[in-house]
């Protein structure tokens, strides 16, 4: 997936704002390019997990549909650990087939972003080109 520097920075900024809790949000895309970042509320309000607020899921889904875009990625942060999918993330990903997972790691103060494909429990790193 390709993403502009501005959208990339928006995700990182959201992660920093929500720390020490995890942040979460959705990325709309068209033809493999991120078009919009939708920060959402972490209903779990937790440093260990995230739960995209159901009302916001519906709202964002409707907006993505109305704009004739597709859901390209889910992003969230790991404020204490490396930006690799946890087992919780892998389990959660079963509900979002075909969607990339962008994780913003803030464990050492510096933001480290990694992107993952999680398909049927199989995790592989994916490309996120910041342009």
């Amino acid at each position: 997936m390709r993403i502009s520097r501005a959208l990339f920075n928006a995700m990182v900024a959201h992660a920093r704002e929500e720390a020490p809790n995890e942040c979460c949000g959705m990325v709309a895309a068209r033809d493999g390019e991120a078009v919009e970042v939708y920060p959402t509320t972490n209903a779990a309000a937790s440093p260990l997990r995230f739960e995209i607020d159901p009302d916001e899921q519906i709202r964002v889904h409707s907006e993505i549909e109305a704009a004739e875009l597709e859901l390209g990625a889910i992003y969230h942060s790991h404020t204490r650990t490396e930006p690799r999918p946890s087992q919780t993330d892998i389990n959660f990903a079963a509900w979002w087939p075909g969607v990339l997972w962008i994780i913003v790691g803030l464990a050492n103060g510096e933001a480290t972003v990694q992107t993952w494909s999680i398909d049927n429990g199989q995790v592989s790193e994916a490309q996120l080109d910041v342009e």
Partner: protein
Amino acid sequence: MSGSHPVTRRHALARAIGVGGLVVGGSAAPQLVDPSRSWGAAPAETDGQLVYATMAVELLVIAIYERVIASGKLSAAHGVLADRMLSYERVHARVLGSELRTLGVAEPPSLGHASSSSLDAILVSKQVPESVAQISNESEALALLIKIEEVAEGAYYHAIARLTDSRLALRSAQIMAAEAQHRTILSEARNPGHIDFAVPVAFVQGRG
């Protein structure tokens, strides 16, 4: 009848007409109770149980869509239609999953890897005679999708009447409306040119 037993009289009246709250207990401490909890009626389902049940049906719907699409019996156009509807069913499941986790209730297990015979057994339990194991043409494939959408409608219909959290009831109504739209489109797809088959009903109740 003596006038000294108002509670008993009210019991009898409510029992006769089957409506209304009841006053029970001693006269010094009357309590209003839900009549559905009285006289051996099934205990009220909790919101968690109701959302769990609707999500379980959503997972069944998803599994059926996946099998129907994989059967290869749908035309290209109807395959695209089914793909889109499947994506919406997944959104429903994700939202319900979030609601369940918020309620502290574990999600029902996915049926993605269930055998066709297991799915057929579940369909039978929902009064759906169509078989996921024996889809021989597009008409049968669409008929199965129509029936499973009716099952979903029925699950939300059941839940909406019982959920105590109005927000969850609204959520169920939103999804039930979507399922009804799906059924209408599928009916038109199965009976092209016969729009009368696809005319939405005035009051959606569903199956189950």
